[in-house]
């Protein structure tokens, strides 16, 4: 292509981008003479150059547009939305022709007579008339550039809702004469360089930085050589050069924004909304490569804000907000990153719709939704295929939006987050690195290999003890200890539980250096989640040049690239996003299994408040808080001895006290006591110290090794023994319980429904059956149980109390047996009344077996037998 044409194209494209912005500005401030002069000058230049280069079609369109603008400048016409629209249409045509020119080197053929006629009419002051004529028939569009043409074809219909739609001719008001010739054009201080040259420079500088680092590393080992001083200088010059070359690649973010005013303007016309776009920090500079990559996501998000975020003027009025909605773009530097905020003052994200959509797509269950915070819900919009717009508009709402935005931003090492307040608007915050080529990274070691972690995602470094033995960790060092839930390491960090991954395990590096008792934890931020990466050692940070990994390694998602360190060795760069995905943390990575809905929340594996205490040893013990009636702190002198056993006067009665550990410490001035009661009986369990109340899943994993302990469960990350209240109750009241305690080994996971009105026994039976290997659902009444049946809950057996309010056990059994999916289930009655007549009545009602309350062994044996019979039957 002709060099002249190529230069013309570059220049014209820039002018056109400026024109879009300037025209929209003019529309808002029609009296701004500077803007007007700028527009006129730009169009004039385009026209002039076209004439010079022999591009007749372009010249005609530009000329017609210039005439309109000339009239506006002279004050004959005013810059109404209609005038601006017709000029914008002309610019679109110019763009279409220019892109044709760029593709083929020649002006594409086409007929612009209609557009020119419209422009001429506008120039003559007959805009409204034209607008009625021109759009009535679509222009024959022979040009190949269909897309650009589409916009150009339609001179905006005169449907502007504002008062400004008065005939333009009526607005011919004398204007002050424009300043002569505009401002002087400053001397040309810039030269054009192709991007390739800059890219090559950048690559060379990157290599230079690496070589410099290598030299420095070498020099560090040799002291006082003659090289030291020149090397220092070389190092400084290299840094300056790096900075300088980086600067050449820097562009103001406004370059990525210059299409937005036009977009918002068109959007507001199309959607009949009033939108004001405010752009702050447009001169914030960032690497042009990054700029290119965020252009599309930004455009998409602004469009979303205008389309979904902002309400119609009527809705806004009703909500007591100004009619004009506001979209604000804000860019600024923050610690080596660029932060871009896109906010609107619209209605906020519709949480209800998001919830419905989540359910409809099976991304989470209702029960899970209940436990989610609003922020968590809102983040679902970053999931693939998630659009809450019920109507798919031409503008947005095709469900390909935010996940693509998120992926694109993560691709350049950035992060995106959002904050939405119902009725007050939504703010998206994007954090991206200044440049992609050179990043600061933390060098760590795991399994004798070194890795780089980009500094952008590192939040902090923590040194922690690798699982010190139990008991040892109570020793009181300030250093945190890595604890384990099952085999999953976690760390308590400022009262939060931080999930950990061991880099050794994750990357299958084999043995770690186990001689050291400490480990370093690199806390990284991935989206809204924090994650700790356990490494063996941490070195310093280093500036590294990110190089992509070889294509045959692309499928290893844990790495975002590789680089060469100062000592010349190759090192892999870890990708925290990839690690999070690999470990199932973070949006998009979780694979939620869909469970059977609301009934799950009753399961015994759900959170239970547990009281933690100590007795006899440093080892913590736990008891379900629901079983404890009161916590008492009794003065020593009030503990008396009756029949050889300690008792105390409690609420006007004698309450037996049982020591958890052997022997009573009579020295202590006060005694902590856990009080259990049922009906009018109570007993006190004497313990050393009450530690805490925590909420955790009660899942008994080991059955009790000694009497008095139900088994061991992981509570708040510690293996904790759960005491068997039943055992201790029998210690106080011989007749409270019978039989000793030997829970069966779990044989299979059978689901058992327990119907029991007494909270105490419900809490008691649940862990007992849980320890015997059953999955227990406990409900307080027969009606509740029947509701579960209607919800479609499935069980293998039912254990029910007989004497209950509303519907007693016998009625319940009859109802179950009468019909429904539970009709064939084994049912075991659990009652304090064990007279033969009672047993008979129970069997008549449909109970399979009848077990005396508190006979835990009998209950478990009966359950086992019933279930076995059922299998055989």
């Amino acid at each position, binding site marked *: 292509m002709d060099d002249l044409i190529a230069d013309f194209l570059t220049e014209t494209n820039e002018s056109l981008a400026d024109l879009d912005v300037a025209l929209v500005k003019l529309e808002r401030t029609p009296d701004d003479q500077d803007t007007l002069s700028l527009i006129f000058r730009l169009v004039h230049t385009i026209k002039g150059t076209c004439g010079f280069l022999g591009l007749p079609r372009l010249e005609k369109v530009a000329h017609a547009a210039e005439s309109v603008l000339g009239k506006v400048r002279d004050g004959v016409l005013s810059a109404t939305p209609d005038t601006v629209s017709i000029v914008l249409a002309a610019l679109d045509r110019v763009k279409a022709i220019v892109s044709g020119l760029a593709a083929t080197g020649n002006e594409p053929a086409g007929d612009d007579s209609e557009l020119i006629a419209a422009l001429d009419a506008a120039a003559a002051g007959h805009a409204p008339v034209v607008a009625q004529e021109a759009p009535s028939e679509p222009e024959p569009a022979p040009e190949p550039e269909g897309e650009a043409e589409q916009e150009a074809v339609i001179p905006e219909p005169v449907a502007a809702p504002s008062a400004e739609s008065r005939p333009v001719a009526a607005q011919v008001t004398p204007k002050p004469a424009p300043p002569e010739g505009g401002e002087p054009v400053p001397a040309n201080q810039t030269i054009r360089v192709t991007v390739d040259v800059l890219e090559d420079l950048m690559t060379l500088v990157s*290599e230079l930085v*690496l*070589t410099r680092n290598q030299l420095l590393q070498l020099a560090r080992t040799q002291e006082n050589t003659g090289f030291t001083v020149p090397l220092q200088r070389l190092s400084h010059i290299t840094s300056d050069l790096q900075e300088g070359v980086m600067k050449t690649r820097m562009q103001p973010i406004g370059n990525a924004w210059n299409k937005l005013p036009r977009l918002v303007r068109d959007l507001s016309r199309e959607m009949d909304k009033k939108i004001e776009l405010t752009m702050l920090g447009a001169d914030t500079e960032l690497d042009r490569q990054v700029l290119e990559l965020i252009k599309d996501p930004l455009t998409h998000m602004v469009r979303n804000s205008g389309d979904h975020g902002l309400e119609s003027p009527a809705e806004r009025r009703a909500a007591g907000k100004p009619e004009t909605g506001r979209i604000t773009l804000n860019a600024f530097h923050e610690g080596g990153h660029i932060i871009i905020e896109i906010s609107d003052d619209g209605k906020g994200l519709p949480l209800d719709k998001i919830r419905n959509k989540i359910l409809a797509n099976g991304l989470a269950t209702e029960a899970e939704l209940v436990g989610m915070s609003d922020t968590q819900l809102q983040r679902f919009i970053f999931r693939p295929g998630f659009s809450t717009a019920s109507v798919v508009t031409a503008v947005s709402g095709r469900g390909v939006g935010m996940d693509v935005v998120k992926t694109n931003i993560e691709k350049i090492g950035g992060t995106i987050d959002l904050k939405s307040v119902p009725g007050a608007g939504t703010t998206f915050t994007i954090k991206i690195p200044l440049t992609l080529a050179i990043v600061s990274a933390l060098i760590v070691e795991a399994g004798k*290999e070194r890795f780089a972690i980009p500094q952008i995602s590192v939040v902090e470094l923590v040194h922690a003890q690798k699982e010190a033995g139990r008991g040892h960790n109570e020793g009181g060092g300030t250093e945190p200890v890595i604890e384990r839930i099952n085999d999953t390491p976690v760390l308590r960090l400022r009262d939060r539980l931080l999930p950990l991954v061991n880099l050794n395990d994750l*990357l*299958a*590096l084999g043995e770690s250096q186990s001689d050291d008792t400490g480990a370093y934890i690199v806390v990284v931020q991935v989206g809204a989640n924090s994650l700790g990466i356990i490494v063996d050692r941490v070195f310093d940070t280093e500036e590294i040049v990110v*190089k992509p990994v*070889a*294509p*045959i*390694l692309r*499928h*290893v998602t*844990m*790495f975002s690239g*590789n*680089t*060469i360190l100062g000592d*010349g*060795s*190759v*090192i*892999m760069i870890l990708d925290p996003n990839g690690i999070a995905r690999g470990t199932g943390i973070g949006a998009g990575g979780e694979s939620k299994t869909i469970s059977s809905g609301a009934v799950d929340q009753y399961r015994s594996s759900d959170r239970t408040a547990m009281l933690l205490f100590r007795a006899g040893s440093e080892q913590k013990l736990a008891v379900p808080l629901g079983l404890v009636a009161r916590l008492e702190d009794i003065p020593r002198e009030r503990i008396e001895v009756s029949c050889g056993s300690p008792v105390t006067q409690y609420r006007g009665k004698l309450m037996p006290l049982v020591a958890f550990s052997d022997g009573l410490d009579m020295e202590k001035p006060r005694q902590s006591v856990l009080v259990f009661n049922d009906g009018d009986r109570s007993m006190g369990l004497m313990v050393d110290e009450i530690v805490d109340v925590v909420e955790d899943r009660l899942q008994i994993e080991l059955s009790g090794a000694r009497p008095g302990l139900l088994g061991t469960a992981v509570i708040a990350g510690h293996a904790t023994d759960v005491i068997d209240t039943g055992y201790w109750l029998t210690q106080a009241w011989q007749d409270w319980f019978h039989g000793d305690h030997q829970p069966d080994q779990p044989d299979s996971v059978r689901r058992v429904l327990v119907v029991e009105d007494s909270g105490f026994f419900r809490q008691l039976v649940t862990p007992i059956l849980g320890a015997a290997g059953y999955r227990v659902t406990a409900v307080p009444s027969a009606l509740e149980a029947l509701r579960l049946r209607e919800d479609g809950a499935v069980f293998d057996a039912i254990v029910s109390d007989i004497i209950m309010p509303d519907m007693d056990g016998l009625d319940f059994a009859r109802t179950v047996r009468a019909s429904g999916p539970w009709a064939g289930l084994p049912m075991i009655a659990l009652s304090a009344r064990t007279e033969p007549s009672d047993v008979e009545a129970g069997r008549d009602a449909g109970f399979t077996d009848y077990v005396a309350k508190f006979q835990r062994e009998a209950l478990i044996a009966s359950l086992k037998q019933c279930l076995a019979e059922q299998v055989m039957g």
Partner: protein
Amino acid sequence: MASDVMERAEAADDEEERVFVTLTVADQLCGVPVLGVRDILGEHKITRIPLAPPEIAGSLNLRGRIVTAVDLRRRLRLPEPPADQPRMSVVAEQGGELYALLVDQVSEVMSLKASAFERNPPTLPPAWAEFSSGIYRLENRLLVVLDVGKLLALTEAA
């Protein structure tokens, strides 16, 4: 690339000569077309790449470029070399990326006559047949021509 060479060789004059870099892997003499070779490296520090396919020995730094090393023994499903044996590498380019083929020994560059070339014998084990584009009869031993393109065609499935 090697396969092109071969086809042309067959059609061409028997006296036409092809130039190969010869190398040994597990005592077998092999050759790769010299035009595809960018560099020969001695023992080099190689960084392990976790989670990579076993054939990938790691990556190394060749004058500021990162080169992915492919272990030829593993690629050809041959036993591991003795632990103390130094390894050499033949560097080749594929799709703009550099790869180093880790071999036991790189020896001379040979010009070989097309008349000495033969197709793979059908009895060649599949591991070899997959990557060999033919055999040259030398005076007292045989030279297997390796197809570098196929050797480096490691995909996710590999």
